[in-house]
């Protein structure tokens, strides 16, 4: 049930406190709403999956106002208060839905005793190998055992033996002994990834998670099963045994794989990224992301990474390069090949540079097949940013044949290329040789090899900025690790060029001063909005000006182009 669809509120009583909650919400969520860190412990329940009710950890005591069976009238206590008919057994919070007058006790002796019981049961056949387990530090079993366990074991029998390292798919390795059979991964594959590959074989205490015969967990969402595994059973083959999670710093970021803009968390230590996991945003990606999106950080250490500012192949300081680039751009007949991989801030500067150098701006589209979930057809994170900043006013074309003609005709003499390999887009090396090329990008390609000036740029993991996703939601990302030594944030170098082009002196800028300028000139961004104050879930921008462009995205997890257009049109009418 979607929480948004519930309008009616009911009053329920949780541990003696009356709380107003949406009708039908389950007790785990209701207790969360009480706040103060109050939580009903649970393993199998996940807000984005169906209810299984199998872990039995979330048990609470539940009662309803007692009514006379014959008359339907309320039965009162001697002191005149409503009498509560308590259920004789504890009930599971995940499958108990709030209704008017419901009473819940989350900490009675019965509740504690049943949670302790479940904890003891989960541990008897568990290998208790926390010292070598990747999940340690973020393991619900470990946490709840400290809270609800007895501290010693009454189990003196032999533990069950199960497979320790089964390969479920290219990215996931399973330790069956740690599995508590909560079925989250099974439900995820079936309900979210639409690829029903996981199931249990054998019975009772020998139940074992496995793939269906002849199949493997190879869909592009397989690592989400690792995220939602409450214990260390499903492990990322990539991250396995690499790092203790408590050593890792967590930084909020945005996935650049496609225009979906999945919210992510980057886990890094001492300038090195160890893994990327999804961050919950119910408007964008729920709690999921693609496997391919998680692997993007590997590009950081790629051998073809551009590390130095250079002019004609000679390493220079960034200031010198900025001056040289400015000179080239001043000479007129300039074309800019921008990028939908650039952040909104960078695009804002490219727009300024284009205006000041009289350059014509083109972008190139990067399309692929959409998977209907979190990988959209547009494989760039920030096409909407290019539109909102005014860098472009039309959708990009597939190639740069027009630009090639302009070079041939002599109409273009200088090209500022951002992150694109022009030789793959209809401009042959010979044609390219006729123009001066300034290349801005994170990695080397054939264009950077022939470029007269190269400005290395930072990857999304190394800088602050923002992207605007498919539904015109602007979302911020933060630098998790420093970039290559000496490489500055793109917009700092661009400021030097843009200021010089206008004959002004470059100022020392921060991301918020960039935002000050941006919000002053861009209609869609409200004046008071700053990067630092961007809410976690991002801000939905007014897309009215762009509704008639033929975006390529089709319906996916949280975006439906038809519904989006209709909703905006309805809004515009109001």
């Amino acid at each position, binding site marked *: 049930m979607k929480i948004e669809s519930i309008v009616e509120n009911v009053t329920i009583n949780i541990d003696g406190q009356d709380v107003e909650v949406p009708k039908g919400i389950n007790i785990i969520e209701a207790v969360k709403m009480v706040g103060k860190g109050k939580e009903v412990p649970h393993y199998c329940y996940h807000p984005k999956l169906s209810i299984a009710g199998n872990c039995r950890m979330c048990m609470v005591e539940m009662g309803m106002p007692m009514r006379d069976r014959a008359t339907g009238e309320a039965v009162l206590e001697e002191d005149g208060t409503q009498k509560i008919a308590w259920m004789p057994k504890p009930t599971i919070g995940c499958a108990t839905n709030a209704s008017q007058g419901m009473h819940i006790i989350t900490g009675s002796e019965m509740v504690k005793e049943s949670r302790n019981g*479940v904890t003891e049961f989960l541990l*008897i056949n568990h290998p208790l190998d926390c010292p070598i387990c990747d999940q340690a530090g973020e393991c619900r079993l470990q946490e709840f055992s400290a809270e609800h366990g007895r501290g010693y074991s009454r189990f003196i029998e032999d533990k069950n033996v199960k497979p320790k390292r089964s390969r479920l798919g290219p990215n996931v390795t399973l330790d069956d002994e740690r599995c508590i059979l909560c079925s989250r991964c099974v439900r995820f594959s079936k309900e979210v990834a639409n690829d029903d590959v996981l199931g249990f074989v054998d019975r009772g205490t020998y139940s074992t998670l496995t793939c269906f015969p002849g199949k493997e967990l190879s869909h592009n969402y397989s690592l989400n099963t690792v995220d939602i595994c409450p214990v260390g059973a499903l492990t990322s083959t990539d991250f396995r045994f690499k790092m203790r999670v408590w050593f890792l710093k967590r930084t909020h970021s945005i996935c650049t794989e496609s225009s979906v803009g999945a919210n992510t968390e980057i886990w890094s230590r001492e300038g090195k990224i160890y893994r990327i996991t999804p961050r919950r945003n119910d408007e964008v990606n729920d709690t999921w992301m693609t496997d391919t999106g998680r692997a993007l950080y590997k590009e950081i250490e790629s051998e073809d990474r551009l590390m130095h500012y250079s002019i004609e192949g000679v390493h220079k300081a960034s200031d010198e390069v900025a001056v040289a680039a400015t000179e080239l751009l001043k000479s007129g007949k300039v074309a800019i090949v921008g990028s939908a991989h650039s952040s909104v801030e960078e695009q804002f500067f490219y727009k300024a540079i284009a205006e000041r150098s009289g350059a014509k701006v083109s972008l190139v589209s990067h399309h692929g097949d959409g998977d209907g979930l979190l990988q959209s057809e547009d494989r760039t994170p920030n096409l909407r940013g290019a539109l909102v900043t005014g860098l472009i006013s039309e959708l990009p074309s597939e190639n740069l044949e027009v630009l090639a003609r302009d070079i041939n005709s002599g109409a273009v003499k200088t090209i500022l290329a951002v992150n694109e390999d022009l030789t793959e887009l209809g401009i042959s090396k010979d044609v390219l040789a006729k123009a001066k090329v300034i290349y801005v990008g994170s990695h080397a390609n054939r264009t950077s090899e022939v470029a007269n000036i190269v400005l290395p740029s930072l990857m999304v993991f190394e800088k602050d900025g923002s992207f605007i996703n498919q539904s015109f939601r602007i979302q911020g990302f933060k630098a998790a690790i420093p970039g290559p030594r000496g490489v500055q944030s793109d917009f700092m170098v661009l400021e030097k060029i843009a200021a010089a082009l206008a004959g002004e002196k470059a100022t020392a800028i921060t991301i918020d001063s960039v935002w000050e300028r941006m919000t002053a000139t861009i209609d869609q961004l409200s004046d008071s909005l700053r990067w630092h104050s961007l809410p976690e879930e991002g801000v939905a921008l007014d897309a009215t000006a762009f509704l008639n462009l033929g975006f390529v995205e089709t319906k996916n997890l949280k975006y439906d182009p038809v519904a989006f257009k209709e909703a905006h049109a309805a809004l515009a009418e109001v």
Partner: protein
Amino acid sequence: MSHQETRLIFKHIDEEGYTNDIDCYVKNGGYDQLKKAVTMKPEDICAEVLTSGVRGRGGAGFPAGMKWKFLDRKSGKPIYLICNADESEPGTFKDRQIIHQDPHQLIEGMMCTAFAIQAKLAFIYIRGEFFEGYKILESAIEEARKKNFLGDNILGSGYSCDIIVHRGAGAYICGEETGLIESLEGFRANPRIKPPYFPAALGAYQCPTIVNNVETLCDVKHIIEMGGEGFAKIGTPGNTGTRIWCVSGHVQKPGYYEFACADITLGQLINDICGGLKPGRKLKAVIPGGSSSKILRADERFTGKLKDGTEYDWGIEDIPMDFDSLMAVGSMSGSGGVIVMDDTTDMVEALANINYFYAHESCGQCTPCREGVPWMRKVTQRMLDGEAREEDADLLKSIADQIAGRTICAFGEAASWPVQSFIAKFKDEFVEKAQEQAARRKEGKETAETTTLI
């Protein structure tokens, strides 16, 4: 004192010359009740069943008429009827006899029920091991279909319904009604959480479904024959109709015996009907309603007040065999499997046997049952293997207490009640076991002989 059986369901069971084909059944008045039923209003049949007070014969003893009343008829979805023929409670062997010897009685009862609840389709979920029964049912259904007792436009009534026989794949848990439905749908027999999946509202294929035991469905036929009030005259108020008691264990004449509820006492059943214990043996304990019901100790006194206010003071042999009396003494009539144990029984071994069964049959879906029941099995097995500890009795009880009432389905109770009751009533034997073994260990002897379970 001799006691007369009241053979209602088992009227023709083991009768000389009675065969399980349709001609024999019809010759003995078969399908007359179905002919009558289809002329009645469905809601009238439901009302008769409610009046009859017939309680479910599968184990829980819930009034069948009440169960039918819970059917969600407003949903507009088709209604399904399922016959639970997954008879697998240790100690129970009644449904198998009905299926083997009188399959048409079941079919007639089912079609009467299907008509009463206006089911779109009926299923018989038969235990996988009952292969012979499956073949018999299939051919009986074919015979009945030919005579239009089921199929399209049954007996010209305009009502159509067919029966599909589905063989289980061999698991005790398939007898749990929601597990049965999952299995019928083709999934692992993992029982569903209730709420929301009460079969009467969200059963087979998420449609309203009634699941009744074989014997209960047969009762429906007889309720139509004698009317709800007529049926209610058999037995006592609240305990109407007959029960088939499947007696096994240390008696001279084990077998199935059908009596009106409360017609005989446990003592009469054991001593008079079943010929008593073997010579020289003394009664030690009785499990009155299948292996999951709580054990009764031979020298116990049961005192208290019944629902109707009458006080009772019974020894084990005085307990009237019906639903409420057995519940009053802390056990249950369950599926009618009476397991008698004499004084040669090693209670630790008996419990180990039961634990082995439940550990083997736990579906493994929810934590307390999946982990707790095999733990209890390991403890009792270890006790037999010569490693018993005095504290094991308390440990067993504690584990059982952590299971009962904490699971998705009633299997949790079914598996813990034996342990709870064995420890409550025979704790001394569990402690003695440990002491004996300790003494033998001291003398340098083997602590245990090899025991093979099941």
